[in-house]
């Protein structure tokens, strides 16, 4: 029983082909992670699966009535829009106070209902986004680099939370991640993307695949050596930091950045 699937999906923007002949299917309860260099079409693939970006050829299919909990990379809320957490969690469907409180408690933000969304730190914002996704009673959680802009303890805590949630709710998880440590620890399956599917399989299988090594240029044996250097450790504030895909990856030996 497949929750969501792409079948020979291609996406082109203008003349540029972003995704070429991508096929994948997500089964209930599994954690699948998309990895790949910048510009490899990871976010585009998620957006195509969500129906935001139309397929140029091929198709996307979803189980009828599939409930998706989506956590975007980040959410910018205009200061002109007064939005308390409680109200945000009830968009677009209303949820009761008890239900809302339980969702906030689950993500470790008890009693944050009355806070303004614009006053949240980056980590709190990601947790609220996750709480909102959980309130949809999702069959699948879709997360697009959900820890961008979090510091490392925040990042580790966030992935742990996702793992707990998955175990409690039994939903599938499809996420884009840069952080291969986490990928390898937490995923059932890894899909390595570079415009097309380079390789996929269990984390160990992928990390030994020549395609993967060619893409990420790893030196160390078996251990996970990729670490994306962060130029901008953005501790706990939520302004729109320009930390995006613009600059190239810096590859380091994992030892340089013992975690």
């Amino acid at each position, binding site marked *: 029983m497949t929750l969501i699937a792409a079948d020979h999906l291609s996406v082109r923007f203008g003349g540029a082909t972003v995704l070429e002949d991508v096929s994948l299917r997500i089964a209930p309860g599994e954690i699948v992670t998309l990895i790949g260099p910048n510009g490899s079409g990871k976010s585009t693939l998620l957006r195509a699966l969500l129906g935001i970006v139309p397929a140029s050829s091929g198709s996307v299919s979803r189980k009828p009535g599939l409930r998706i909990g989506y956590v*975007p990379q980040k959410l910018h809320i205009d200061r002109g829009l*007064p939005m308390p957490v409680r109200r945000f969690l009830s*968009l677009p469907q209303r949820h009761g106070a008890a239900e809302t409180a339980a969702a906030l408690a689950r993500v470790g933000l008890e009693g944050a209902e009355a806070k*303004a969304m614009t006053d949240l730190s980056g980590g709190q914002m990601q947790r609220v986004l996750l709480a909102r996704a959980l309130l949809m009673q999702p069959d699948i959680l*879709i997360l697009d680099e959900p820890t961008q802009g979090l510091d490392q303890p925040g990042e580790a805590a966030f992935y742990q939370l996702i793992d707990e949630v998955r175990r409690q709710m039994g939903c599938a998880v499809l996420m884009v991640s840069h952080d291969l440590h986490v990928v390898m620890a937490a995923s059932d399956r890894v899909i390595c993307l570079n415009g097309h599917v380079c390789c996929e399989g269990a984390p160990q299988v992928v990390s030994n695949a020549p395609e993967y090594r060619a893409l990420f240029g790893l030196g160390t044996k078996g251990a996970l050596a990729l670490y994306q250097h962060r130029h901008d450790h953005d501790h706990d504030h939520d302004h729109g930091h320009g930390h995006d895909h613009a600059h190239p990856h810096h590859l380091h030996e994992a030892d340089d950045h013992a975690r």
Partner: protein
Amino acid sequence: MPADFLIRAALAGLGLALAAGPLGCFVVWRRMAYFGDATSHGAILGVALALAFSTSVFVGTLGVALLMALAVSTLAGRGWAIDTTLGVLAHAALALGLIAISFVRSVRVDLESYLFGDILAVTPADLWFIWGGAALVAGLIAARWSALLTSTLSEDLAHASGVSPARERMVLTLALALVVAVAIKVVGALLISAMLIIPAAAARSLARTPEAMALAAIGIGAVAALAGLGASLTLDTPAGPSIVAAAAACFVLSLALGALRRA
């Protein structure tokens, strides 16, 4: 007992406040201020066409406002920067409208009333149009409130929760055209955006939820309409600009109130 024309003027102002308050909030939240300008400047062209073809001014402005709004969304969707698109369309429409209206000889003297409104000359028939249009806009926004709010927050989140942002954009486009048609008699084409933006901006410092902000914007718009009308009568100032000036005064007051509340 105030004269009938005053009562009609007050009712027209209140009708505009009812529609412009909630819609203005979306204009502020989505940063569509220029969008309102383009649509309302197009209305002058609508007036000229309506007079040339002897149809109702309400129908003419509604039609052209709708076309303008559609043209703006289409061009913006094609990758032109939104401010460039609007700069071209708004001023081109205004210029074309002024040229077109100069061909309709009989109204040359009336031009000012379409640019700045003529609220004291609102007829009972106008009032039906104004309240009909205002009720339609308010109803439309109320009915789609949650979906509109979700797609305003984030189009991606809206998509993922089964809301179509394109449809919600159309709802707002339609509402905007209606408000322009409603407002042209009250404050005139040049000041319609002001009635959308100023009450909503004033409401921001007073509200903690989107719903409260929309209601406060209606209230502030209503106060501004009545206060502006009153000032216009006692000081013999033009009515439309007086209403906008009163709204601006409310905005300044709201800043002070907001500062007090935070203190």
